[in-house]
């Protein structure tokens, strides 16, 4: 492997979160974006072809080494690592609405779910899956919420474009109201 690929490997291995290309570029001031992307491709290929138990994955707007799915049961059985807790249906509903409508205010989330979503949103913020991005216009200038990169991470998504498009669903959602 090239020295740059090795350096990238060491950095990605040491990190517990996905690292963005821009972050990886700070490892070696000489290497530009093109070289870093080439190094990442080289690294991914090296792991894919040599038969490894881990692989390099593009996820949550960055790159991360993850174990291959077939080893999950054994690792969890031996209690070397814990799988994350599942999200409740209420949390997933709220996340789905925020993901598709972001930035979105609480009232709109409440309305679609038919229940007060305040406590659920607070929990999602606490877990780092949702954040306040700005204040909307109108009465009381409501807080607007959006999903975080960590939301992508727990779903294993590269970016929001990987979410299914609404047209692909069997029923149609009304388009978000145009801002007044």
């Amino acid at each position: 492997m090239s020295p740059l690929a090795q350096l990238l490997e060491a950095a990605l291995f040491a990190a517990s979160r996905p690292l963005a290309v821009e972050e990886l570029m700070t490892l070696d001031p000489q290497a530009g974006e093109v070289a870093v992307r080439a190094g990442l491709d080289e690294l991914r290929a090296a792991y894919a072809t040599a038969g490894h138990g881990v692989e390099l994955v593009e996820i949550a707007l960055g790159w991360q080494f993850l174990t291959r799915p077939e080893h999950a049961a054994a690792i969890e059985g031996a209690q070397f690592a814990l799988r994350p807790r599942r999200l409740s249906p209420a949390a997933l509903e709220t996340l789905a609405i925020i993901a598709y409508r972001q930035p979105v205010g609480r009232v709109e989330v409440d309305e679609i779910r038919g229940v007060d979503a305040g406590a659920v949103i607070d929990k999602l913020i606490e877990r780092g899956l949702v954040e306040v991005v700005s204040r909307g216009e109108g009465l009381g200038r409501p807080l607007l919420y959006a999903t975080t990169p960590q939301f992508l991470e727990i779903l294993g998504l590269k970016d929001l474009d990987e979410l299914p498009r609404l047209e692909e669903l069997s029923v149609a959602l009304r388009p978000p109201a145009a801002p007044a």
Partner: protein
Amino acid sequence: MTTLPPPPSAVDQAGFVVELEQFSGPLDLLLHLIREDELDITDLPIAKIADQFLGVIGDLGLSQAADYLEMAARLLRIKAQTLLPRRPGDDEWEDPRAELVRRLLEYQQVRELVDWLADAAASRAERFARGFMPEARPVPPAPLVIELNELLAAAERVIALIPEPVLHRVVPRPLDVEGATERIQALLGEREECSWLDVVGEGASVVDVLSVFIALLELAKRGALKLRQDGPFAPIVIRREPPRAAA
């Protein structure tokens, strides 16, 4: 035929449903009923579904949960509207179910997204990230950037929110807690028990209501009386404390 799900798991002492494992809200319950009976959402037999909904929230003890209660009221109103006779050829008539149907369709789509998200999260959970950090030393916090212009822009936004140099809102009449206290004590001097309306009277102003309310809470705190309300919106009963020994 509706098979009832097990009773809710988390009901706090006050009787309010905190979170249900079974349904994430009234729309979810409604959709459950519709699916179970294989009904057509766009042509909802509203009378049937309203009765079923009421039955289920009664059985589950949900009738105190505001969100479910509100939906129940909405269903009953739609049911009533559909029962009203309408003239043949009335073009102005709008199906009272339309809004509910739209919300249900929208909610159904959210449920579909939820299934997709749950699947994605489940496959991500099959993979572990790095567990061990070789350099265990604490990472210094990220440097914080505040630019003066940002702060000033924030100050301007804030100033724009203030209509005048901050003035305290002026209450037209000050609260008269002392007067209310005297009134309550006088009433309880005469009888063992009285009601909220006995104290405030009909057509009381907001200030009067607040004064009485604060006086009641204060007296209750001091142990001079007990307050009781048998249910939401039920009359508040004020009882002298300690009860006078029976003659």
